[in-house]
């Protein structure tokens, strides 16, 4: 009875024993039946599906547009506006002493004279500050600095947190216990106090050889990154560890294991996609909190170095002439609020779109 070409049928398996059939017993499918097999809608991936949902959310789209506009402004504006953020205004090589604290879109006497004589001055869109510098360019650069700080700080946090959290989550047992005790301790440190302490100390300790890339960034900026890296990764590490632990407990992981899927495949197909949404969301929410912290530090006077503006230090400087020039506070304050609000809304939108637990 044994057919050599056919694999041997296991007595208990449900596999059809093909040796019992021959070609006469099959009939061809009709066209109608074939059409039934057509895919009704295009297959989507997790990412595509999430993006589709994200772009249906008007708040998220709005915040992407706002962030895009801010991004374009801070890239393009310094190319168009002929002033530099630390440049003290001068007309025809003569220092313009009257260009102090100008209101938006006004000119000083010297500039007005120059324009009357047929010259051209670029308007001071936000006016000037008390040291005769164009305020618009300063706000633009401040926004740049704040965004850079927020972005890099959250990348550092993401990287450290992911590494630590995934190691702790995967290994489990005693290693996990010890690693998590360390996290517990760092987590319970009061962050603002330690950040202030560290940034004071780091600013005095760090010395870079002049001309190097690090020196051009400024010690304050570097110390900000170090401080963020040292303190804020624990939240991310906890989150990722928790995710991995809870995902590891799921039945589908057990199912995958029981049908013999290799560990690498389980991590790639089952654990990572489920973690990814949480990682994306908390990174999006980490950026505004880093911007917040940076602006606090700058406000207290511990942020980026003096000639370089940041939104926080601009707001702090504006406090001095609050009574006479309240608009000077408004510009950087509005910029902070807009950026933070957009990132918050975008983060919420991402959560709604990408969190698998919220799927209906």
């Amino acid at each position, binding site marked *: 009875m044994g057919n050599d070409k056919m694999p041997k049928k296991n007595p208990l398996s449900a596999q059809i024993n093909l040796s019992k059939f021959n070609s006469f017993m099959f009939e061809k499918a009709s066209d109608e039946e074939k059409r039934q097999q057509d895919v009704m809608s295009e297959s989507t991936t997790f990412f595509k599906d999430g993006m589709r949902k994200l772009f249906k959310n008007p708040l998220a789209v709005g915040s992407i547009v706002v962030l895009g506009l801010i991004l374009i402004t801070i890239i393009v504006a310094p190319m168009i506006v002929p002033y530099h953020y630390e440049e003290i205004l001068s007309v025809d090589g003569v220092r313009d002493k009257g260009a102090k604290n100008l209101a938006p879109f006004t000119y000083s006497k010297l500039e007005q004279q120059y324009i009357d004589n047929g010259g051209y001055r670029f308007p001071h869109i936000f006016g000037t500050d008390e040291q005769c510098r164009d305020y618009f360019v300063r706000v633009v650069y401040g926004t740049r600095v704040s965004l850079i700080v927020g972005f890099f700080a959250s990348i550092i946090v993401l990287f450290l947190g992911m590494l630590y959290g995934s190691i702790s989550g995967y290994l489990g047992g005693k290693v996990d216990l010890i690693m998590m*005790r360390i996290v*517990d*301790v760092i987590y*319970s*440190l*009061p962050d*603002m*106090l*330690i950040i*202030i*302490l*560290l940034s*004071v*100390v780091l600013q*005095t*300790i760090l010395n870079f050889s002049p001309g190097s890339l690090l020196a051009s960034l400024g010690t304050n900026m570097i110390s900000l990154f170090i401080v963020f890296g040292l303190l804020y990764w624990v939240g991310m590490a906890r989150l990722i560890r928790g995710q991995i632990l809870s995902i590891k407990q799921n039945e589908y992981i057990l199912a995958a294991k029981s049908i013999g899927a290799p560990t690498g495949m389980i991590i790639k197909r089952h654990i990572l996609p489920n973690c990814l949404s949480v990682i994306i969301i908390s990174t999006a929410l980490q950026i*505004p909190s880093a911007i*917040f912290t940076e*602006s*606090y530090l700058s*406000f*207290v*006077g511990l942020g980026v170095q003096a000639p370089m503006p940041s939104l*926080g230090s601009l*707001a*702090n400087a504006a*406090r001095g002439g*609050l*009574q006479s020039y*309240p608009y000077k*506070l408004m510009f950087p*304050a509005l910029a*902070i*609020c*807009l950026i*933070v*609000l957009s990132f*918050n*809304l975008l983060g919420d939108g991402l959560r709604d779109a990408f969190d698998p637990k919220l799927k209906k």
Partner: protein
Amino acid sequence: MLKYIVKRILLALVTILIICMITFFVMHAVPGGPFNREKALSQATIDALNARYGLDQPLWTQFVNYMKNLLHGDFGVSLKNGREISDIIKESFPVSARLGLTAMAFALSIGIILGSTAALMRNKWPDRVIVFFSTLFTAVPSFVLATLLLLIFSIKLGWVPVWSATETHYLLPVMALAAYPMAYTTRLSKTSMLDALGQDYIRTAKSKGVPKWKMIFKHALKNSLIPVITYAGPQIAYIITGSMVVETVFTVGGIGTKFVSAINNRDYTLIMATTIFLATLMVIATMICDILYKLVDPRIKYE
């Protein structure tokens, strides 16, 4: 349960010890001692001062001595003006504490009311208004809000005098401090209220014919408060201590202002004492909150 409490207290103690160590050694890594002035002192004077304050001994000995004194309630004296630090804290902490507690009570009560209202009137106009404002206020840094309040109410309108250290004028700093936690509490309690309203026990209560107000207060609200409690504990400590920015804007003589000025003055002992004092407070608040959390919600397993 007892085991958990003991474990939690141990963790808190370790944390406090580590905070003391970090503060101590980090502060001593700064170049330039407390006796660096614009007018240079003679080497003999510096040596004498170092010996007077025990700064000539090895770091570890200094640390051990410091901890010993700390356990006896002795924070040492300020290196700048020679005042007892415990006096400085005693004098400035109540100001910050009163400010912070008022702000937090305000933030929590209003936040819970607004959040629950939003959840109960889901997708109607009150919900939308509340969500709009709570989203907006989580994006406004407190120093911006503080400065704006100062500008509008004190300078332009003249309704409230600029801070004059009397108790009646807490209004503006309290508002500035409370805005963010209030917005956050609102969002938090809305989510948890919605969550609670969707639970089976609410359906049971409804089908039993429990009156609506009783259902909301006895079943839904009680359960929805759990995440708020977890948030509130550390936040109370944070707001009492972390109000430096608001204190700076309104020139309140609280502990936050003292901390910032101590850092600028390189006043080692004052910095350490303030950090340790505030950090201990925060750690203890978090610890109490964690323990309470487990007591309130029996569903959480003790590790």
